[in-house]
């Protein structure tokens, strides 16, 4: 028993000469990988248009229910959110919204320094969330590949999209 006590004393003592594992945060910035799940942004497609099509999938996927948005439709047939609000005081940075999003619109970024004195300031509106770039996916544009018809792009004109089935060909 005594030898095991002495052994643990010695083992702990040796740690005096080990390197500390602590990253002394504000002085030393830790490396965060690009896919780190931090502050959420809304990205734009390569043409500079908002990617979000207000499908609400992110809001459904979100475990603490902190995303709320309202759909509106442009004259050209595009859907977009009328407002898009994330309450970061409830967000748990789980990234499920990013997984759920069919258009790569919502993305998490390696930034976590978003402390506020006032809880109200943790509610980010669309203007606060939108960035001027495509985020992690540079080429993707939902309306270019999707089957949805918008002004200037009819059915079957999307990238890799087959022509719509002509009922008269079906020979029923």
């Amino acid at each position, binding site marked *: 028993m005594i030898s095991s006590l002495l052994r643990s*004393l010695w083992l*702990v003592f040796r740690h005096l000469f080990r390197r500390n594992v602590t990253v002394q945060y504000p002085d030393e910035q830790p490396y965060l990988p690009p896919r780190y799940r931090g502050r959420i942004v809304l990205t734009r497609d390569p043409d500079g248009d908002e990617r979000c099509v207000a499908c609400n999938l992110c809001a459904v996927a979100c475990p603490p229910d902190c995303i709320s948005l309202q759909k509106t439709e442009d004259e050209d047939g595009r859907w977009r959110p009328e407002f898009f609000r994330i309450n970061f005081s409830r967000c748990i940075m789980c990234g499920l919204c990013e997984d759920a999003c069919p258009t790569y619109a919502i993305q998490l970024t390696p930034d976590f320094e978003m402390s506020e004195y006032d809880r109200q300031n943790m509610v980010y509106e669309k203007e606060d969330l939108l960035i001027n770039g495509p985020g992690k996916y540079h080429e993707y544009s939902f309306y270019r590949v999707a089957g949805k018809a918008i002004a200037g792009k009819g059915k079957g004109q999307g990238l890799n999209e087959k022509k719509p089935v002509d009922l008269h060909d079906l020979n029923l």
Partner: protein
Amino acid sequence: MPATTGEAVHLVLNIFGILLAAVVAAALLTWVERRLLGFWQDRPGPNRVGPFGLLQVVADMLKLFFKEDFLPRFADIPVFVLAPVIVMAAMLLGFAVIPFAPHIGVIDLNIGLLFFFAMSAMAVYSVVLGAYASNNKYALLGGLRAAAQTVSYEVFMGLSLMGVVMLAGSFDLRTIVLAQRDGWFILPQFLGFAIFLIAGIAESHRLPFDLPEAEHELTAGFHTEYSGMKFGMFFVGEYLSILLISSLITTLFLGGWLGPWLPPLVWFLLKMSLLVALFILLRGALPRPRYDQLMSFGWKWMLPLALLNLLVTGGLLLWRG
């Protein structure tokens, strides 16, 4: 009675110097302990306030002073207030008999060692009274444990030192130090040293023998209801008792201020700091025993060993004449 004004000034300087040094050292020890524990856990510990985090002590003190000094309605107020004062007073009084260096030390009692025992026994009152006055079940459990633990460990704490007393032929700490000119007592009295060290840890309620506080089971044990500076006094009292036990071990077993080249006081402080570091290492490395293990260890192992030590030392001394 001091004969001349020079001696009187010397005495007053000694008293206040030691008092101040002890309290400051105890406060600093809170920082030292956290830093050392940090290093032993591969992290830096408090290092942000002031150089090396030294001012953390000041920050903590300010915090404690400005905290609400809460008196529970159900407590026995006079006893509740008195309890933390006792522990600090007893521990500070204990420093009176420690000879730090040839001319530093408050008083050379010819019963110095007994005086120390008296003071450390007084400190138990503080814990028990504080626990009782809190009128809280956790505190009471802590107090019960403290009483049982201290009473049983005090027994062989005293016995373990009798070997040293026999070798030196005196209870006077200064005489004991001077008797170690030809060799520290840690060699002939190693068993006594080990037993006293263990008993000392138990006396100061330090991990691994901190069952009276045992925060995992008893929230904070006897000082559950204490807050603000009253808690601070218990806290400083604990560190004072570490310092006291360390300086006593230095005096009794490590030759006090004796040592080549360096000035006596430096030797004393050096030995003492190493012991303090050992105390902290024990806290960092060892798990806490169960309460019944603690008691049976004390009565079934430590007491017989202390008696054996006494017997063998006495026998040898008689045999050599």
